């Protein structure tokens, strides 16, 4: 158990800067998720924490231990690999026992702890088998059991669910969450799947091209993205972004012909920047589709109607942009029909037009 402190960590592969001077503090016992599209440097950052890559700059601390120059096996980490890396020539038992054997633990203890880990993951009956005789899901459980049987301050996981089929993934996700709540250890979890990140993490660090754009609780990241990229990467459908203009020194906002009064935090932000062009970000569920014009509505035309069961997803073309809108499942919308969109002023995000950062 330990706090992880990453200071200005940098990792380059030739010309590619995989991790760009990243700083991050992960408090003890936090479950943090590194989220970002493929190739953004999540794995590399994780491997820098593990010590599997040597950093090109910056430092890594576990608690007050500076582990930057320590070899992997002295860092007291344990890890679940994306490919599981379950040793094919050892039984499940020996796989789980591997780390304990390396620490020369007495046989009785090894047995006890392997048993305990196996029980946690419901694989007691598989202990005598070889990995080749296991399904992908079972191998994944072995990899997790191996990681938790080992004494470590920090548990690292690199897309542990990405090689499972959809149903199994859902099941394992819930199980992992329960398991890790019990474990009370610091966890760094890498994924490119935003749903996984939202459902698992205490906090989510969203990465793009080697940089962390935002570190916040799942709900904050979802509702109040710190950057254009975060909003468009998280959520299904992604956040809508419309060109807008702050007017009256921050009191209001125009989107095309529609006028919006700003409230709360966004109003303060708008007042700070004064009149200028901005991005307005709003999620599909915060837009209400109406069949007739109102005082603050945005006119458009429905392009696509996709019934999704719990609700219906509309794709609407307005003069400004394509907008995804959630309608009630029983709403009588048809394609090619005019529609008026009412944006919830309290759910609006304003972002800088050039940097994409939230105001």
């Amino acid at each position, binding site marked *: 158990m330990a706090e992880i402190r990453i200071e*200005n960590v*940098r990792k*380059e592969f030739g010309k590619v800067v995989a991790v760009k001077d990243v700083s991050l503090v992960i408090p003890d016992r936090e479950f943090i998720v590194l989220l970002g599209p493929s190739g953004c440097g999540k794995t590399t950052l994780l491997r820098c924490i593990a010590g599997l890559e*040597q*950093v*090109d*700059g*910056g430092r890594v601390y576990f608690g007050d231990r500076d582990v*930057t*120059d320590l070899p992997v096996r002295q860092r007291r980490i344990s890890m679940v690999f994306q490919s599981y890396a379950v040793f094919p020539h050892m039984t499940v038992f020996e796989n789980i026992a591997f780390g304990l054997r390396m620490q020369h633990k007495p046989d009785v203890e090894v047995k006890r702890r392997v048993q305990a880990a196996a029980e946690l993951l419901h694989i007691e009956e598989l202990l005598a088998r070889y990995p080749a005789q296991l399904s992908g899901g079972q191998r994944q459980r072995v990899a997790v059991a191996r990681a938790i049987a080992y004494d470590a301050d920090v548990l690292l996981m690199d897309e542990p669910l990405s090689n499972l089929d959809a149903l199994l993934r859902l099941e394992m996700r819930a199980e992992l969450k329960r398991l890790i709540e019990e474990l009370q250890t610091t966890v760094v979890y890498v994924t490119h799947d935003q749903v996984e990140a939202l459902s698992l993490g205490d906090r989510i660090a969203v990465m793009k091209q080697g940089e962390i754009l935002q570190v916040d609780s799942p709900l904050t990241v979802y509702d109040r993205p710190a950057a254009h990229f975060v909003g468009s990467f998280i959520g299904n459908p992604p956040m809508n972004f419309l060109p807008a203009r702050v007017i009256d020194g921050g009191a209001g906002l125009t989107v095309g012909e529609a006028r919006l009064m700003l409230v709360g935090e966004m109003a303060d932000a708008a007042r700070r920047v004064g009149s200028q062009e901005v991005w307005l970000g709003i999620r599909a569920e915060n837009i209400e589709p109406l069949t007739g014009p109102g005082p603050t509505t945005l006119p458009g035309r429905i392009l696509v109607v996709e019934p999704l069961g719990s609700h219906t997803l509309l794709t609407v073309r307005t003069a400004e942009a394509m907008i995804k809108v959630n309608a009630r499942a029983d709403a009588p919308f048809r394609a090619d029909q005019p529609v008026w969109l009412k944006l919830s002023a309290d759910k609006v995000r304003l972002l800088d037009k050039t940097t994409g950062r939230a105001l």
Partner: protein
Amino acid sequence: MTARPAPPLSRRLSRVLVYLAAILVALYILAPIYLIAVMAFSPRAVVYGYPKPLLPTQISLETISFFINSYGILDSVKNSVLVAVFTLVISLAIGAPAGYALARYIFPGGDIYRILILSTRAFPVVILSIPLITTYISWGLDDSALGVALLHTAMALPTTILVTSSIFVGVSKDLEEAAMTMGCTRAGAFRRVALPLALPGLAASAIFTFMLSWNEVFAAAILTLQNQTLPARLIVQLNQSPIPFRFAGGFFILVPAIVFMLFARRYLFSLWGVKLR
């Protein structure tokens, strides 16, 4: 850009030791080749002399031309090339179809065939030249280049089959099928699509077969009397030959092999990494 922090001393030190070891082993392998080359390019007086020079002080073609002009050497070189070419052609002609079949079809008996081919590697094929003598005499193949090549083919064939099979496995079947949907016949698809893609690998396999044959001594010496290959001729004469003849001869067999390796090195691992499963 921040400078990469210097790794700890112990790690740097072990790195140096690893490089040192790597270089030492490389020297063990390269030094003898270098030394025989020095001998081959020294004049005969130096070759006879003692102590031997470690550096080529007087470069001369005297020793090599003495060797090449010795009686029967050029004929035996010609025989060697002939045998190697026969071997290469026969083993590809017979082995490649079999390798293709293993790669492309799933059929009853396929696994048994594969095991059969693998298990031939557990036999000292060269030794079979002795019983073959009587067969060759009755077929009129004794003391002929073709006879030697036929045995060399028996040595090379299992490897050729397994290697060509892995080469064709590497050429996706989809490509051939795509060609067939666009009007190629089965054979046409093979010729226009699979073969060109497999060609570099096949060429590498052929090079190794050539080398195997070019280098083989025992069977060639047993199966020939007059029409000897170069190694056969050398081994028969070796102990009665002057030193310069031996050294130049050794160098002469060595050179083509090393040049071939240069061409085939990319395929080294795919050729020899074939596992026995």
